[in-house]
């Protein structure tokens, strides 16, 4: 199995250049129930952010596979795994916050 390091770099560039977290944050701040477009923006940014977390998991898996085969760069693998780990933790926090907020809103409605 050959690992194309060019492809791996591409995965990282996409994720890092996208600045997804900043856009998600801004979309969250400006979202407004009376402005459907802003809600759509938020939804799409959320979707993209989840997609990026997934990309990092895949990149980490690719690196781990390379090392499992005896090829592969050890420090790149370690970095990829850490990025995937941190991204997942961040995603979990955001998800928990969203769930909590939703529950608060539902309680308000009563």
């Amino acid at each position, binding site marked *: *199995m050959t690992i194309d390091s060019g492809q791996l770099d591409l995965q990282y560039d996409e994720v890092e250049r996208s600045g997804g977290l900043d856009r998600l944050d801004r979309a969250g701040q400006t979202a407004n129930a009376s402005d459907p477009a802003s809600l759509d923006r938020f939804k799409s940014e959320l979707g993209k952010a989840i997609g990026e977390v997934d990309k990092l*998991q895949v990149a*980490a*898996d690719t*690196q*781990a*596979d390379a*090392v*499992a*085969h*005896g*090829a592969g760069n*050890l420090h790149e*693998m*370690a970095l990829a*795994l*850490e990025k*995937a*780990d941190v991204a*997942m*933790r961040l995603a*979990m*926090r955001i*998800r*928990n916050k969203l769930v909590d907020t939703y529950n608060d809103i539902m309680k308000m409605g009563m």
Partner: protein
Amino acid sequence: MRVFDGTLARLERSLDVRLVRQNVLAANLANVDTPGFRPKDVDFAATMTAIEGSAGHGAEGTPSPGGTDGMGAGAPGQGIPADDLPIVDVPAGGASLDGNTVDLDRTMVAMAENALQYAASARAAGVKLGILRYVASDGNG
């Protein structure tokens, strides 16, 4: 629902193979002074390829009859049966008075490399399982 994917299975198998290689290299060192002894080694890349090939669909992570993690070689928890491994004789590097062709220094280097790769695979498996554990405990663990 399959929680543990193909990458984790590959890492587990790589750990097994590395341990077998450690045994083989230790045997070479123990016999560095035994007359007529030919050193052996495990062809790591070929072994990993062979294992994934024999697992068939298992290589992609789908379940196969051999085990729950898709890598068919050996039942889970029993490692790799040593009979299946390509343990090859190392070609002799030079002349030898008593027929022993163990190269002490090369063997030490191979052992160091093997241990390092083992540590890398183990660390990767640990991090992957850590991510799963974190998610499974709802962000609390």
